[in-house]
């Protein structure tokens, strides 16, 4: 278990055709994860975090680079993909959309068991998965439809549907952002418990740094297709080094002590990645003249920082 990483990503690039050229949604990502680890992948909309997640579970083919899973490169033929999609489960943001409204909760969980031909008694497997996801007694939920249960319970059904396949990796894309605050904590506690019990690795894609503080062992911050900072949650969130991470932290509502650094504009366009450091057009260090004082402004504008934290000021 502790030997080879569960997941290794090398120089990964994922591109989409766009109206004007190519969108480089993932643009040179290197990343590793181990079993039993919870990693939060954070960034704004459009930073490529969802594309990266989709590539990891095999829904998206990389243009370049490699995804290695349990030591082996991820193939894109039918068979490898089917196996991979059992071992790496994706959980979506909106449980209502993820469930078929005309399927009972039993069917929703049993479907994966049938497709993946999981050995064992189907009913026992479904009951066990529902119970582990906190839906007890499970039999009470078998014949219900998604609309008959609450949003939190729907997300538990989705989690049960993933866990019944006994995956090695769970990729959860904003798993609680469509849920009420009161329910969020309950679902996060469930995910934390499942990771501790089963040693599954969990990658949580989110824009919510509070969630990362709540459950993640490690945090990777993504900006415009690249991981710009990475580290243990406590270090990274209490002593961020990249100016982008610092800006993200400064706008978290509870962060009272720090001065807000509200970046102007939205995450920029992956079809036009700026030259030099991709963050430089929005970087507070460049704007305030701090980069000039450090004598690195020219490099910020012309040299792509190919290291992590990806900031010339940190390296200087």
């Amino acid at each position, binding site marked *: 278990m502790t030997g080879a990483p569960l997941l290794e990503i090398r120089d990964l690039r994922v591109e989409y055709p766009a109206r004007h050229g190519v969108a480089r949604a993932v643009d040179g990502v290197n990343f590793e994860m181990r079993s039993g680890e919870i990693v939060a992948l954070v960034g*704004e*909309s459009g930073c490529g975090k969802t594309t990266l997640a989709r590539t990891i579970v095999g829904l998206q083919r990389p243009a370049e680079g490699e995804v290695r899973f349990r030591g082996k490169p991820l193939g894109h033929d039918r068979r490898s993909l089917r196996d991979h999609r059992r071992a790496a489960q994706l959980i979506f943001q909106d449980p209502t959309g993820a469930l078929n409204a005309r399927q009972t909760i039993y069917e929703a969980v049993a479907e994966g068991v049938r497709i993946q031909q999981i050995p064992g008694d189907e009913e026992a497997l479904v009951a066990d998965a529902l119970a582990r996801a906190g839906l007890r007694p499970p039999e009470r939920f078998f014949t219900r439809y998604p609309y008959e249960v*609450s*949003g*939190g*319970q729907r997300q538990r059904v989705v989690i049960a549907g993933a866990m019944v396949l006994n995956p090695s990796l769970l990729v959860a894309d904003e798993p609680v952002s469509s849920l*009420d*605050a*009161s*329910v*969020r*904590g*309950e*679902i*996060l*506690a469930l995910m*934390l418990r499942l990771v501790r019990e089963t040693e599954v690795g969990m990658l949580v894609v989110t*824009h*919510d*740094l*509070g*969630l990362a*503080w*709540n*459950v993640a062992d490690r945090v990777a911050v993504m900006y415009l297709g690249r991981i710009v900072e990475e580290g243990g*949650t*406590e270090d990274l*969130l*209490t002593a961020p080094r990249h100016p982008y991470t610092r*800006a*993200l*932290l400064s*706008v*978290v*509502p*509870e*962060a009272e002590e720090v001065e*807000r650094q*509200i*970046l*102007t504009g*939205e*995450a920029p366009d992956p079809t036009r990645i700026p030259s030099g450091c991709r963050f430089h057009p929005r970087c507070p260090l460049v704007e305030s003249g701090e980069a000039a004082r450090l004598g690195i402004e020219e490099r910020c504008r012309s040299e792509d920082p190919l290291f992590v934290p990806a900031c010339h000021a940190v390296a200087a």
Partner: protein
Amino acid sequence: MSVEPAPAEPTREVAPLLSVRDLHVTYPSAGAGIPAVRGVDLDLAVGETLGLAGESGCGKSSLAGALLRLLPRGTEVTGDVLLDGENVLTMKPGRLRAVRWTHAAIVFQGALHSLNPVQRVGNQIGEAIRLHSRGVSRAAVSKRVGELLELVGLPARRARDYPHQLSGGQRQRVLIGLALACEPRLLIADEPTTALDVMVQAQVLRLLDDLQQRFGLGIIFITHDLSTLAEVCQRLAVMYAGRIVEEGPSDEVFEAPAHPYTRALAGAFPVIGDPAFRMQPAGLPGDPPDPRYLPSGCPFHPRCGAAVQVCSSTHVELWPAGPDRSAACVHAPGSPVPV
């Protein structure tokens, strides 16, 4: 916040901009009807920001809709909603149309879909202006549209864009500009930032704060995100099962909640850097009650960690819970119920 030197009791004494008394909203259904709002009192002074928090289904959006009579036909709304002293609930349709937009405007939840996709955003704002001030010249309307867009931080030339050409944050800005088109004194913002990214959310919140200070707008801010409310609002009201269960200055309510429900909500927002939240996500077990079958006594008692014997049989009301604060809990300092 206000420009004049503040008297001892700054806003409470003057006639409020909005005053809600014993508001009830009941949706029609087979049988007795579904009580979504069950007796709410609220006051909002000119230039004051009030946050309204609670889980889905607590009645906060029904309350917002009732303030401008925007609820589906057949919904029963009783009580008083006094806007600048005039009762919205008894207004004639013509007067109501005038009051919406010019006195009070609403920015909706899921607002990203409330723009017409086949009309330029400038025309949509212009339409609101034309309908509410007849005989304005085209040039004057388009000048005003440009001013409004600049007010919300967009270049005036974006008036020619269609909604799909704008990002989520930009569309939300257009909607705020649209709401301000007829210079209302009250803005109701129902989950205005929920669908937005953190950074864009911060931009929109800063914009609302700026507008509030410049024009002395009264704002009612509705969201389940208690941490955002604590930051942008002066006062905070927490709703549960159709009633306000706690009210007071927002910092105090968020940091030292008097009601166990508020405590659970506040605890659901982790404070980064605080070890108490590390690897210990906190939530509130159970679901909000079905408004048709409310628990007896305090409707929160089945989910409450602090519930005692009397809670299942005591009728709770907003009792004093410190200076300028109240809470509907038998444990509140001013509760008359012995526990």
